[in-house]
């Protein structure tokens, strides 16, 4: 009777923090998963496909606090193999800008000074 897995309401407010290009990339994604399979830097918590899916569900914070964003090596396999020709790699890089400012970012704080602004 008790619910230990409550339903999570989908709220899209956090997406207002996204720039329009990244938002559009996330919306256009058909969730085929190919970029996820292609990613060389995928670590246990996320993959490019998963990142876009979470954005579609408005779960920006989970994306920004992940370690995956920082493990991306820029090989661009994801963008190259996307059937919708979405620039997934660019979206990941853009998300880093937001992630660096997040209070729970997994980005080493002392390196924050190296980023302008």
């Amino acid at each position, binding site marked *: 009777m008790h619910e230990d897995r409550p339903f999570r309401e989908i709220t899209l407010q956090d997406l207002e923090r996204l720039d329009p290009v990244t938002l559009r990339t996330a919306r256009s994604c058909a*969730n*085929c*998963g*190919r970029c996820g*399979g292609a990613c060389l830097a995928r670590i246990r918590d996320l993959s490019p*496909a998963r990142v876009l899916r979470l954005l579609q569900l408005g779960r920006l914070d989970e994306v920004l606090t992940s370690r995956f964003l920082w493990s991306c090596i820029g090989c661009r396999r994801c963008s190259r193999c996307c*059937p919708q020709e979405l620039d997934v790699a660019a979206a990941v890089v853009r998300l880093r800008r937001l992630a660096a400012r997040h209070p729970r970012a997994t980005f080493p704080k002392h390196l924050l000074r190296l980023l302008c602004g």
Partner: protein
Amino acid sequence: MPPKIGVYLCHCYGVIGKILDLEKLSHQAGKWRGVAVSVHCPALCSDDGLEVIAEDVRQGRVDRVVVGACSPAVHRDTFLRLARQVGLNEHFLERCNLREQCTRAHRDQPALAMAKARNLLKMAVGRLSPAESFEPVSSSTSRSVLVVGGGIAGLTAAENLARAGVNVTLVEKSPFLGGKVARLHRYYPRFCSPRCGLEVLMARLLATGRVTVHTLTEVTGVRGTAGNFTVELLKQPRYVKDTCTGCGACLEVCPVEVAPSAVLPPGRQRAIEGPGLFPYPLNYAVNRVFCRGKSCSRCVEVCPAGAIDLDQEEDRLRIGVDAIILAAGWEPYDAGRINNYGYGRLPGVITNMDLEVLARPDGPTGGQLIRPHDKKPVRRVAFIQCAGSRDKQHLAYCSGVCCAATLKQIDYVRAVAPEAGIFVFYMDIRTPGNLEELYRRAREEHGAVFIRGNPYAVEWDPVAEELVVTADDTLSGSRVAVRAELVVLATGMVPCAVPAFERLEKDTTGFITGHLPCSPIEVRRAGIYVAGCAQEPMDVSTSVKSALAAAAECLATIQNQSVAVPPVVERHKCDRCGRCVEECPYGACSFDTDGYPAVNPLACRGCGICQGGCPLRCIYLPGFSSREMAGLIEAVDPGSMDEQPCVLAFLCANDAYPALDLAGTRGTSYGANILTVRVPCVGAVNAGWINDALLSGIDGVLVVGCRTTECHYGRGTSLAESRVNNLRETLQRMLVEPERVQVLTAGIEDGQSLVAAIKRFVKQLQELGPNPFKE
């Protein structure tokens, strides 16, 4: 003989009669030149009302009729039937809209409504006076059709037409009939052998005795128009005569082994081939590309029936047909272009179509599920859906049938390998209707594992000698790998190109989809119909349905029935400039032997674009001759609008006129100074009429049509816009305000916004003042 026009006004049970003083109108109309009878009745559409008109016609009191009543869109058949019954030519019957576009819309301005009604009636009389009568044109055709393509769509269409009494010529590029369907192992939904259905179809086709089949034949040229096509055919030599018994002795001795494909084992492919499981025709065929020629001649010597003749040459034929059905089918997308999946490079990677061949008992592995190149038994199969489909780098569209095809093939795998592991990598499973049953069966009964993720690559493990497919399973969020002996790519469909039909309009997918939804089968060039996968990707059942649809459409063209009157050409005025030929969207107008335009009644769709563009107004649809239109326009009294600007509006019958009717029916009110003329398309509006209107003192002219991209005839609105723009430039130079002529567009439901636009136009005219040409 001067015309005897009868003017009949309808009270419409009071709807018209309460606003308009029909007694007065009728009395006035009776005094106009050419009007012999002028009466008003409670309801013209009733039996009594119709009888009034009928009796006048029968007694010879009138020979032309003006009906002032509801919109011409209403009671169309009522008055046409009346005309036919009393022997009145339908072009001598003119409908005047006194209801939807008069009394209903101008209830609050009865005086102005009267002025409008008087003008509209006068316009009708002015148009009818010089009108000519025309009889529908009867075409005689030889009732013969060409079907291009001998697959299931082509065969179905040919059989259907032949049963209807039509002579059919069927051409097929390859040596044998049956197309892709003949090569399938089974088809859904009943999992029977396609050769059974094809056999039944062929038997019925041959029984008609009206189908001439040419295999190894291609269409090299098409000229002409509906009812009169001339087609050039090129027939390649078969090198095998009709005495062939299909014994296969030639196959045994042929020394040539056709180089095996990297994917399928050589099998028994030689330089001579037989028909396989669907023997139509039965005769074998030599493939001259591989054959060593007369220096070898082993097959010639061994043939017991002496059927092989290596001296045969190609043949060129020319036939005349009334219509053409294009059913050239499809090719699988070249899976070799999908680099990461290794087709043609990695052993064991095949396509859906390859698996059909493998599954057949007469296939290279005898129907066993073993890997083609090394005969290793297959214990695990992985299907990859959307291979090269829904992908901007390959085919952007979905071919619709590959999901069902894979699910069907899972059944094949289970039948011969009950313990095999079956994995399906998919993006979406598309099984509409009862094909959902195939999906259920694959999961419940066959135990296939479905992984929702499109694999990035297929790799080869050289140590274990097996394929590895990896993908992101988006449903669980984890990365999965499957090891398999066989990977089947579900590739999409690409239409077969037929060079002679290259210029037919295709959509972004490259298929010939037609003008959806109004004309899905007939292309713009009348008389050519598309069936089967040439039209769009479809499964076998849908191909058959589409072929039957094409046969039905085709029959409507070639039946020897009367058709509507095509545009009339006044040769004494025509200077053969050819603009009508050029602008016709359907290619229905062509030059006859004297160089004058001639319209093919079977191809004409009655849009009137030819009449709209003619600089000399010498081609016109019945009712739109320059005399009739001049009569209509000159009948307008621009000064009768009580200080309001007088506007003449041409409205297209498809969207604009019904939109205004609807606005009136809903009671939307607008000024009664708008006099409307119904045209088949705004492309039919000739600039000369607009000039006449302005020179007669009419203050403004509106041309209202469908929105540019929605014009039913394609280019009507854009042609009207460019003609009006040209006129406006001239008007400007002549110091006449170009704003007096405007093109408006409206959809059929846009009555309100159309009325608002008309009001804005009238306001603008009020500011401009009266037309400089007004007396």
